[in-house]
Structures are given as C-alpha cells and as structure tokens.
C-alpha cells in the first residue's frame, strides 16, 4: 500500500527536514503526483533499509551513500540479467 508524506513521516518517526535531506541526496525518490508526494512500497522498503543501515549496521551517512549507490548498480545489473535470461527463453520472472 502506498502512503502519503504525513503517514510516511509518522511510520518512520522522521522529521521532515531529515526527509528533505534524504530526497535531496536522492536516497529516496518518491512519486510526485498532483496531490503531493506518494511513497510506494519500494520507497517504504528503501527507507526501512536506510534505517537499518544506520541502526543495525552502524553505517554513517557517507557509508550509506556509497552502499546505496553500489546496491542500485547491482540491482540494475540483476534486472538486465533477468531480462536477458527471459529473452533467451530461460525461466520467466
């Protein structure tokens, strides 16, 4: 289920200034709609990950920045691999 900005801030106990920083650094890219920001399930999962990187892994901001960047490249590569496998007649999805 998608959320609006208010619900999102409440779910993560986030201050709006912190969210602004996350968005500015492109850690999070919520959907912009005529009715405001919309946080899809993937955005919520990503926010949860950022929190866990902070609390469970103990990463600092610079670390999180690098982790997210490399992780996104990794997922990008996995997706194209999956796509190629599909096109070559491999297992679907």
């Amino acid at each position, binding site marked *: 289920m998608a959320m*609006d900005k208010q619900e999102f801030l409440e779910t993560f106990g986030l201050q709006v200034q912190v969210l602004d920083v996350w968005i500015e650094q492109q850690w999070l*890219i919520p*959907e*912009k*709609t*005529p*009715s*405001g*920001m*919309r946080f*899809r*399930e*993937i955005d919520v*999962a*990503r926010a*949860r*990950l950022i929190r*866990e990187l902070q609390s*469970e*892994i*103990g990463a600092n901001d610079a670390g999180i920045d690098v*982790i997210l*960047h490399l*992780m*996104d*490249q*990794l*997922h*990008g*590569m*996995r*997706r*194209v691999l*999956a*796509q*190629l496998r599909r*096109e070559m007649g491999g297992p679907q*999805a």
Partner: protein
Amino acid sequence: MNNPYEVLGVASTASAAELQSAYRKLAKKLHPDLNPGDKAAEEKFKEVAAAYDLLGDIDKRKRFDAGEFDASGAERPPRQHFYRDYAGGEAEHPYADTSGYADFMDGDDIFADLLRRSQTKRANRRGQDMHYRLAIDFAESIAGATKRITLPDGGTLDVKIPAGLVDGQTIRLRGKGATGAGTGGPGDALIEVEVLPDPRFTRDGDDISIEVPVSLSEAVLGGPVRIPTATGAVTMTVPKGSNTGTTLRLKGKGAPRHGGGFGDQFVKLKVVLPSPPDPELEAFVAGWAKGKAFNPREEG
C-alpha cells in the same frame, strides 16, 4: 533456535558492547539487501537478529540465562520484505541504475544491442492515471458546471462538467495525472462523477420527468401554473379539464441530446384537494353529486 550466544559467536559472559559489535559484524555480512543474490540470506539474518533481540535486552537476557524460557519463545515477528524484494522484477522504479554495465552497452555487437533495447523500454514510461470522485447536483448535471477539486496537498484541479452528464460518467483530464519517466508524458486524471438524486426530478435518457400538484380549480378550469425545471421555473398552461395523471410536455426542457437539441420535460399532474378541507366545497359536492353516475373504478 540454536543457542543465541553461539549464533552470535560470543561467550556467555560477553558485555553489551561485545554483543553489539558481534551482531553488527554479522548483520553486515548477512543482511539480505547486502546479499541480493543469496536466497538463504533472509533466514540467516533472521536468526542473528533474533539472537541479538534476545541477548541485547537486559531483562530478556537475564531470564534466558536463568533458564526461564528457551530461545524459541523469544523470536521477533517475522519481517515482511526487504528492499531487494521490490528492486528486482519488471516493475518500474526510479532507483534502477544502469551505470554498472553502461560500458557493455557501447559497441556494435549483438550483446550491446540487446542491452540497449532493454533499457529504452523502461526509461520512458508514461505516468500513472490518478482517480478522483466528485458529487454534483441534478441541476449542475443538466446545465453543466465547473467544479474545483481540492487535492490532499492543498492543490486544486478545475473540472468542467459537460451539460447533460449522466450519473457515474467518468471525465478524463489528459496530462493531469502523475508525472512519467524520461520522455514519457504524464498520466491522466480520471474523475468519476456522481449525480446526487433530486427529490423533484427523475431523469430518463434525455428526458426529465416531474410530478406537479395542481389545485382542483386549476385542473377543472385550466390556467397558468409555475413549473420547476432543471434550469429554472417556467409558466405552463394547464388545459381545462386536466386530471391526475395528465402528462404535459415542456419541449426542450430536458437534458442536452448528443448531436444537438434537448430532450423534453414531462410534467405529470396530480390533482390535490384543498387542505384543510373546505366546507363550501363539501356542501357544493353533496348537492352536485346527486344523480351523477360516474364511477372511476368501473372498467370501460
């Protein structure tokens, strides 16, 4: 569950700091989002997290050490999904990053071509359609109107209601939906319009019907009567000798027709005796009814 001390790889005398350090080291290695290709990572991470949940809490650790419960009773509720569960798959999302293999896309070989093709498909997606609901009243549905929808973030959307709109009709505003990706345009706003029922009017296709009470003298003698329509009141002549059920037609006072013109408004009369009852009328009818044979309940 295995012995939580063993799972974390610490002695049972470990300090809180040692516990946290051991947990973090393992979490770093086993977190599913740091191991997107390891299907078993979720299970391994869960076990470590549960062990730390237990031992990291002073009270729970004390009770466990005292043998008050076994480890399996203390598991945290299962975590639903990790980021990796959303990042894969074919669904569009803005975090997909192709720079990890961008160099493989340069070149004239088949492989580069395959990669390039798979990229454009995703990059220029049209935005989502947004759905809204709006209620208007009967007069507005017939005459048309401009309504303003206030959106949750305080923004507004002006919606032009076409004259003649039917209950449940959806209006599509092109380009007023969510923004798209790359060169994909915005989606549309789809507004489902409800026409609130009016106690006076009933719509039937392009025609409108209304039941109008008339007095005994208006029905018997005829005369001008003010009739409401969807676009305002008009004066109509009730013919002499009208009866309950007599239906008169107001041409062009219905809903707009496709292709031009308007439907009609049908006015069904209902003869209403004076209220409170008029003793003069009663006296007159008593005299008048003698010898009259008209019985409306007989057939033919």
